[in-house]
């Protein structure tokens, strides 16, 4: 599977985080909320007009802006890889 932006993942799909392209500020903030390279996530929803994205990691639901989601690179997970 190829690396894609989180914005290109469809709602309901599972993926693993490959990279977070951002400054220390974003990385730290993301990590603080449990979003870091290597974790598996489910994309829950996206909003039209480049609105915010919601994801779930384990029991945590996080929402963030489209701009941030573009900088999060993920790899789709197939059923087998789970």
């Amino acid at each position, binding site marked *: 599977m190829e690396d894609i932006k989180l914005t290109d993942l469809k709602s309901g799909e599972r993926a693993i985080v490959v990279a977070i392209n951002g400054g220390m500020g974003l990385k*730290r903030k993301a*990590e603080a909320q*449990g979003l870091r390279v290597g974790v598996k996530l489910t994309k829950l929803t996206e909003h039209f007009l480049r609105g915010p994205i919601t994801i779930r990691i384990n029991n945590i639901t996080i929402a963030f802006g489209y701009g941030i989601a573009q900088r999060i690179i993920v790899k789709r997970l197939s059923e087998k890889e789970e």
Partner: protein
Amino acid sequence: MKTILLVGNPNVGKSAIFSRLTGVNVIASNYPGTTVEYTKGYMRINNEKVAVIDIPGIYTLEATSEAERIAVKMLEKEINDENDIIVNIIDSTNLERNLSLTLQLIKLRVPLIVCLNFWDETKHTGIQIDVDKLEEILGVPVIPTCGITGEGIKQLHSRISEAKTSSFEFEEEEKWLKIGEIVENVQTLTHRHHTFWERLGDASIKPITGFPIAIAILLLSFYIIRTVGESLIGYVFEPLFEKLWSPLILKLSSLLGSTGFVHNVLIGKLVDGEIDFVESMGLLTTGLFVPIAMVLPYIVAFYLVLSFLEDSGYLPRLGVLVDSFMHKLGLHGLSIISMLLGVGCNVPGALGTRILESKRERFIASTIMAIAIPCMAQIAMIIGLVGQYGAYGLSLVFGTLFIVWIVLGIILNLTLKGESPEIFVEIPPYRFPYLKALLKKVWMRIIMFVKEAVPYVLIGVFIINILYALHVFEFIGNIASPIVKGILGLPKEAVGALIIGFLRKDVAVGMLVPLQLTMKQMVIASVVLTMYFPCIATFAILIKELGVKKMIQAAIIMIISSLTVGAILNLIL
């Protein structure tokens, strides 16, 4: 004095545990960032008086927002005695993420105790945690608790003295690896089906289902607030004043000779030999009737609804839904929570803007709130007085303010340098509000209102009497006549309301009644009174939060925009 600091991620229930330990009531809700202020209380451990401090939630000791920076500073400042203890409160349903802060706290080498809060929720989320094993690994006491119901609090209390410095060692680079190992060791997950609340949670955040749900919740909220407010007024407070209080005051009135300065201050002017609770302007008539019979019922109704929404966990979801829209105003979605708090009272609303990241956002949010969001006390008075002209008058007032809120936000966003940061927020699970905690919170807010409002209203009514007696209103009215009469189309006597509005806006709206205004004038006066300047309590908080320079800028915007909007309304209505 020995100090206990409650430290943990946002929204893990620190405030509920704080209330349990100290008996000091603090507001606890279900969204990250409820506590933005320092709260201190005291408890006794083995007959020793100990201070307990509720630190606002932090994800990490390397702060990522203003609220976190304030919290980390508090933490650093308060740990100064080797006897001080940190109680680290953890959300048991999110062990992995919460342990990250725990490991950072361990590195501080301070006596530590860990609370596994929301313990009751682990059962239905299919999570099992081996408490003894976690205690063994971390080397500090670990106690399962449920702050809301009080489960485990006794045990926490009795084991606080066992807190100790952990001997757990790790390198910073392998932190997540270590956390992974700990979680693997102590936690077992069992598969389970999605609960009703989770499904609802997902539906209320998807645009297709989320917007209809949001509109339904908003309409239902309005309906409940109106029904509860009106019923309390119509069936409880008005009859109390009319049937019980009025005869007593009339007796006192004749005792005082029905006239004179003392009579006017205490009872005010009688209208056709009867007391008019809005117009009389006496301390014992209007001074009590306005805050208790006109405003309080709506305060009760509003905080019942707001507290329910807060505790359910809906508000951050609303924040995500309106995020794209709020960006047009230079804010992100979460600022809607501060705005809703501002509808209750602008003071907590202004404090609530601390959950926003940048100074620019906080300036925009506080300014448009102070200008265009009337507090519940003022709304109640507007409903009571403008409502007499029917729903059309009310929709003119609130519609205008809503447009002002949007337009000002857009203008500020376009003219201020910088851009608005993106939303980044944890969405808490839905929880059905725990009735006892909810009612307690509503009760606290009512007490706060009564303590704040009644004295200020009484002072306001007293000052009105003095200023009338000294003809001050007349004097200023004559000077300000070109603006008040010429631009706004109001009688010059309306200046009295504008002066008293600095002190309390509800009394100020009440002062408009004897002026016999037309609907158009009533609408303009209500809008201008909302916009032109914040009340003194909000003003004090804004100076503290924004600084004097920014507050002056905000004040200039307030005065210019209120005159502009008043003039436009005067021309087009």
